[in-house]
C-alpha cells in the first residue's frame, strides 16, 4: 500500500478520498485554495497545502505544474485526482510517472488512454458490443461537414477527450453543428488540454443511460458490479441515480456483465472503471468507459457494501482484489439525488452565496454526504453540487418512500437549491413508472408542474398567513402601508399607485 497520498481535488470527492486514504493507513495530504480552507477535506486531511494563484484566469486546482512540483517536494508516492480537474489529463499522468509518482487512475495496456472515447468505442465494437452509428475521428471543418452527411439530425458532436458534459453537444442543424464545432474547439483548448479531435454520433432520444462500475486487479480478477441508472440529468450532469436500474431484466444484466468482463480483459484495465451503455428500445449500445470515480459510485458502495474508492486505491498500489462475488447480484435498491445550489426556476442558474440555515435528513437507510454547513459560502467558481442524498430500501418502493420523506426533511436557506424540484420528481408518476427521461426536466413547464404538485390548498393558506405575518413583524413596512393609504385617501383617486409602491427589482432580505 502507498505511504503518502496527495489528493488533488476539492469538495466531496476530496473529503471522501481523505477518509479512504486514512482508513487504508496512509497519510492523507491535500491541496486547497484560500476560500476552501474551511471545507471538510482540508480540515480532515493529515496535511494540507495552500495553492498559490499563479494565473488568475485559471483555478489553482487546474495548475498542473504547481501540483506536480508539490507532489515531488512532499515525497508522495501517489496522487488521487478525484474527478474533473486533472483526472483525465494525460500530461498530468506522464509528469507524475516521470517522477516516480503513481496517478490513481485506470491504466490500460495499449496505445491509448481510457479517456479517448472514440478509441474505446472501437475496442468495444471489436469485442462484438453494439455501438451507436457514428463518424471517424477528425479535427478539421471540411471533414465535419462530410461526416455529418452520413448521419441524420439531431446528432451529437463529441470531443474524444470530453468529460462531465464538457465538449459534448446535441446539434439539430448544420448551423448548430458548425457553432458547436467552434465552441468545442475553444473548450478543448481551455479544459481538455490534450486533443482537439472530435467525432459525430447518432442521437437517440428517450434512451436510458446505465453504467456498470468495475474493479480489476493486475492478475485479471474482475468484479462487474450491478448497473447504475441515471434517469434524470440536466445538461449531461446527473440529478437522480438508481441501482439497480428499475427495468433491466436480470438475464440482460448477466449478459452485459460477462461482455464487460471480456472488454476489460481485452483492454487490460487495472483499477476502477465504469462502463456506460444507452438502452434504446430494449437494446443496449456501448457508450464509453469512464476511468474516474464519480459521485454516483457511492450508490454502488451502499448497495454492495464494497468501498469502491478504497478498493481503487488499493488495487492501483498493486494489491489484489478481495471482494465477494455475491455482490454482483443486487439484493437491495438504492436511490440517490444530487443537490445543487442553483435555481431550477431560473433555468438552473447557479445560486452561489452563504448558507443561512441548514437542516439535514438522517436515519435508518438514509445517507447524506455534504460539503456545506450553516455559514458555508458556496463558491461561484466551481460546480454547484453541494450534497448527495442516498437511501437504501429492500425494494424500489421502499427506497422511493424513504427518499420522498428525507427530501421533505432537507431544508437549505440562503441559497436556492433543486430540493423542491426533486421532491416533485420523486412524487411524480413518471418517476414511479420508471418512464422519466433525461429530457423531461429540460422543459420549464414540466419543472413548474412538478413543484406545483407539492402545493396543497392548505399550503396556499399558510403562504398567505406567512406573507401577512411577515408584514406585521416589519414595523417599517407597516408604516409605509399606512402612509400609502393616507395618501390614497387624500388623493381620492381610486387605484392610484403611490411612488413608494413602484416595484423595484425583488431581492431577498438577508
Amino acid at each position, binding site marked *: 500500500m502507498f505511504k503518502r497520498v496527495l489528493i488533488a481535488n476539492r469538495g466531496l470527492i476530496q473529503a471522501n478520498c481523505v477518509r479512504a486514504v486514512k482508513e487504508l493507513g496512509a497519510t492523507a495530504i491535500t491541496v486547497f485554495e484560500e476560500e476552501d480552507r474551511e471545507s471538510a477535506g482540508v480540515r480532515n486531511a493529515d496535511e494540507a497545502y495552500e495553492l498559490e494563484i499563479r494565473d488568475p484566469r485559471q483555478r489553482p486546482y487546474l495548475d498542473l505544474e504547481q501540483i506536480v512540483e508539490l507532489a515531488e517536494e512532499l515525497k508522495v508516492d501517489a496522487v488521487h485526482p478525484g474527478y474533473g480537474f486533472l483526472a483525465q489529463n494525460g500530461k498530468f499522468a506522464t509528469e507524475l510517472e516521470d517522477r516516480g509518482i503513481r496517478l490513481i487512475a485506470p491504466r490500460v495496456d495499449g496505445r491509448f488512454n481510457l479517456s479517448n472515447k472514440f478509441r474505446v468505442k472501437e475496442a468495444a465494437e471489436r469485442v462484438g458490443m453494439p455501438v451507436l452509428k457514428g463518424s471517424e475521428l477528425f479535427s478539421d471543418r471540411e471533414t465535419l461537414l462530410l461526416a455529418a452527411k452520413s448521419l441524420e439530425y439531431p446528432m451529437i458532436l463529441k470531443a474524444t477527450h470530453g468529460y462531465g458534459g464538457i465538449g459534448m453537444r446535441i446539434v439539430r442543424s448544420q448551423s448548430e453543428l458548425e457553432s458547436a464545432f467552434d465552441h468545442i474547439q475553444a473548450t478543448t483548448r481551455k479544459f481538455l488540454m490534450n486533443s482537439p479531435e472530435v467525432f459525430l454520433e447518432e442521437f437517440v432520444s428517450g434512451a436510458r443511460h446505465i453504467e456498470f462500475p468495475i474493479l480489476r486487479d493486475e492478475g485479471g480478477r474482475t468484479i462487474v458490479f450491478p448497473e447504475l441508472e441515471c434517469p434524470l440529468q440536466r445538461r449531461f450532469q446527473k440529478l437522480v441515480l438508481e441501482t439497480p436500474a428499475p427495468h433491466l431484466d436480470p438475464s440482460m444484466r448477466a449478459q452485459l456483465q460477462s461482455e464487460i468482463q471480456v472488454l476489460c480483459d481485452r483492454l487490460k484495465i487495472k483499477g476502477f472503471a465504469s462502463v456506460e451503455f444507452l438502452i434504446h428500445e430494449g437494446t443496449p449500445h456501448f457508450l464509453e468507459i469512464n476511468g474516474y470515480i464519480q459521485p454516483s459510485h457511492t450508490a454502488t458502495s451502499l448497495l454492495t457494501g464494497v468501498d469502491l474508492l478504497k478498493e481503487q486505491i488499493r488495487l492501483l498500489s498493486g494489491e489484489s482484489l478481495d471482494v465477494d462475488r455475491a455482490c454482483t447480484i443486487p439484493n437491495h435498491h438504492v436511490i440517490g439525488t444530487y443537490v445543487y445550489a442553483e435555481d431550477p426556476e431560473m433555468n438552473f442558474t447557479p445560486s452561489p452565496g452563504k448558507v443561512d440555515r441548514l437542516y439535514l435528513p438522517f436515519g435508518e437507510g438514509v445517507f447524506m454526504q455534504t460539503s456545506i454547513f450553516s455559514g458555508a459560502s458556496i463558491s461561484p467558481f*466551481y460546480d454547484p453540487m453541494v450534497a448527495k442524498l442516498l437511501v437504501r430500501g429492500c425494494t424500489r418502493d421502499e427506497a422511493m418512500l424513504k427518499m420522498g420523506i428525507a427530501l421533505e426533511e432537507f431544508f437549505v436557506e440562503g441559497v436556492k437549491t433543486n430540493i423542491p424540484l426533486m421532491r416533485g420528481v420523486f412524487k411524480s408518476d413518471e418517476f414511479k413508472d420508471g418512464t422519466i427521461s433525461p429530457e423531461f426536466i429540460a422543459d420549464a413547464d414540466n419543472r413548474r408542474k412538478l413543484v406545483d404538485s407539492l402545493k396543497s390548498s392548505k399550503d396556499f393558506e399558510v*403562504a398567505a*398567513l*406567512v406573507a401577512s*405575518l411577515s408584514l*406585521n413583524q416589519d414595523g417599517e413596512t407597516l408604516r409605509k402601508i399606512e402612509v400609502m393609504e393616507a395618501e390614497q385617501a387624500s388623493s381620492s383617486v381610486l387605484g392610484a399607485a403611490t411612488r413608494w*409602491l413602484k416595484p423595484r427589482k*425583488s*431581492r431577498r432580505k438577508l
Partner: protein
Amino acid sequence: MNYIVNCGKKHAVTIDRKGELNKPFEISVDKSKYSVGVRRLKDDGSILTLMIDHKVVPIDVERRGDGMPVRVFLKGVPFDVEISKVASTRFRPELPEREVSGEVMAKLPGQILEFMVKEGDEVEAGAPVCILDAMKMENEIVAPKKGTVTTIAVEPNAVLAKGDLILVVE
C-alpha cells in the same frame, strides 16, 4: 389586522395578536383558523421559524426593495404572494404589474462563450440570449422579458465580473 393576500387566489387573513409576544396567537385565513407561534426572529424582523397548529414550519420570505413580501418559501417551495389590501381602509391599492428590468447582468463571474442574439433582434421572455461559462458550467442566460435587444454591452469571450452588464432588452 386584516389583509387580502393574492397567491393564485385571494385569501382574507386576520391576525389577532394581543397580549404577550411569546404566546401563540390566532390567525384566520378565509374560514380556517390557525394557532401560530413565532419561534425565532431575525434582528431585521423577518420570521425564521413558525409553529403553525403544532407543526414546525421553517420559512423564508423574499421581499421587494420596499419590504413588501413577494415570495414565500415553505420548505423551499416558492409561493408568489401579493398583499393587495391592508386593514380596514375602503381604498384598495391596485398594484401595477410587476415590471421586469430589461438589463441582463452577469450573476456570476465568468466568460461569455457566445451570443444567440444580435442588436435589434426581437426576443420572447425566457429565450436564450447568450451562454456564460461559470462554475464549470455553461449557463444559458435568458431574456428577462419580451422585447428588442437594444444594446449588447460586451464582446464574445469577454471575461465578466459579477454584476457586469451583458445586454439590454427593451
